[in-house]
């Protein structure tokens, strides 16, 4: 019996983000906040954003979850912080495509930073929901700022 394949999903960078998440906790100025629920495990994730002049000045998340969901949320905040709303939205889409195993352009992959390692999720389809929850929440929050 071997857990080698687990290393594919739980890379050191994933475990590191999960154990020491970046931008965790509510930010002081919030323009949009979205809570999403993972119906399979019952975990909630909250994403907070502060957008000024179409630019994400701050982004954070809150909530408990599995290694994948916590790591993915942490990576997401690193990736999206400081970006324009439209840029962030397209990064969300690129992340969705990546986790579904679709090919994305090399520069898109690069723009996803640490989160690009979650491309290995395509091999673990039952866990895609865990990884994309925070990104879906961010997408909804960003779309909320456009209304």
């Amino acid at each position, binding site marked *: 019996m071997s857990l080698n394949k687990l290393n594919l*999903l*739980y890379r050191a960078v994933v475990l590191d983000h999960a154990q020491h998440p970046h931008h965790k906790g509510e930010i002081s100025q919030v323009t949009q906040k979205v809570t999403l629920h993972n119906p399979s*495990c*019952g975990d909630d994730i909250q994403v907070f954003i502060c957008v000024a002049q179409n630019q994400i000045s701050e982004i954070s998340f809150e909530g408990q979850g599995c290694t*994948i969901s916590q790591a993915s949320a942490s990576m997401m905040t690193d990736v999206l912080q400081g970006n324009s709303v439209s840029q962030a939205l397209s990064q969300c889409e690129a992340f969705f495509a990546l986790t579904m195993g679709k090919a994305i352009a090399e520069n898109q992959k690069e723009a996803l930073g640490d989160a690009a390692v979650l491309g290995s999720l395509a091999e*673990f389809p039952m866990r895609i929901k865990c990884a994309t929850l925070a990104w879906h929440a961010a997408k909804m929050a960003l779309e909320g700022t456009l209304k």
Partner: protein
Amino acid sequence: MTIKRETLRKDFPILDRKVNEEPLLYLDNAATLQTPNQVLKKITEFYQKSHANVHRGVYTLAQEATQAYEQVREQVAAFIHAANAHEIVYTRSTTESLNLVASSFGELVVQEGDEILLTIMEHHSNLIPWQQLAKRKKAILKYVPLTVDQTLDVHAFKQQLTEKTKIVALAQTSNVLGVTNPVKKLVELAHQQHAYVVVDAAQTVAHHALDVQDLNVDFLAFSGHKMGAPTGIGVLYGKSELLKAMPPIQFGGEMIENVTKTTATWQPAPWKFEAGTPNIGGVIGLGAAIDYLNHLEMSWIAATEKKLMMHLLPELQKIEGLTIYGPQTVERHEGIVTFNLAHIHPHDVATGLDMLGVEVRAGHHCAQPLMAALGVESTVRASLSFYNSIAEMDRFVYALKMVKEFFNHESE
């Protein structure tokens, strides 16, 4: 049908497959039991030799199909010791059975201000139908809590029963805690208050002999797929006089007696509840599954599963950081054990185990109010069956230790 206990694993070819390059160790039997060859063969034979719609044609094939379909009803009645086959309604699942009772019988007997008593350990399928009925009727929904040892608080059950209690709905065996409730005693108490008792036996039917007359339950629901039949066939047992009083909730073919442009009359129970072409193949499979279980003997199944749990539970209890939910003693445990490993999310545990070929469930197990009562969002659940072995229990424990080490080591 040839079935031998010694070689019964051969009846389940799926148990020979590999998962992630490891031999499959299937421990999600509470979700669905694997289907033995004998059941598949019977269904294939039916489709190859006798397939026709039931209760319609006058030709030979239709008559054969109808006979087979109704014969299984007799078999089901005998299997759970119902007084007669007309007390057996075919449904799609346990969920549909329970919804039928809530929507038809519940509508009849529950009025504003009445009480419906549930237990906190109910699966959503025996909870939401009552919750919604209570909403419609402005009735009061009450939950029996757990004791400190995480079994049903029978004392609280007694206290919460009042003359206003119209319906008591409870699981015979919890799909999370693995504990079997003292249904017979609870039914007695409920009947003293003239309440009707609805029992979800989904987690009991393939593991223990059932006797609905001895238990004196008013309704009892279970699913075929948890006992070796295909998915999509379920059963509702109801006492004759209760089924007779209940209106149908689905209308259409097969369930009618006479129809005019403005009126319709119904077939007697159970047929008035079986609108439309039923799952005939599923019914045939259910009959074969009952044959299979009967050949093994329910007492042998119960004893075999108990032996496995007697081996497994103490081994799990030795793992540091592992919390078992539900009773801590083997005596009160059916073949279900639900747990968490400290600091490791259930989904991570389940993915790790899956890499080692071990298939377990992680999540809230469709019992979110129970999860809240236990103070967790989700848990890992391993559920065994008569085809599992002691060696598999050892392998499971070993795999669990590996997964624990992987995550603990990686987090250092």
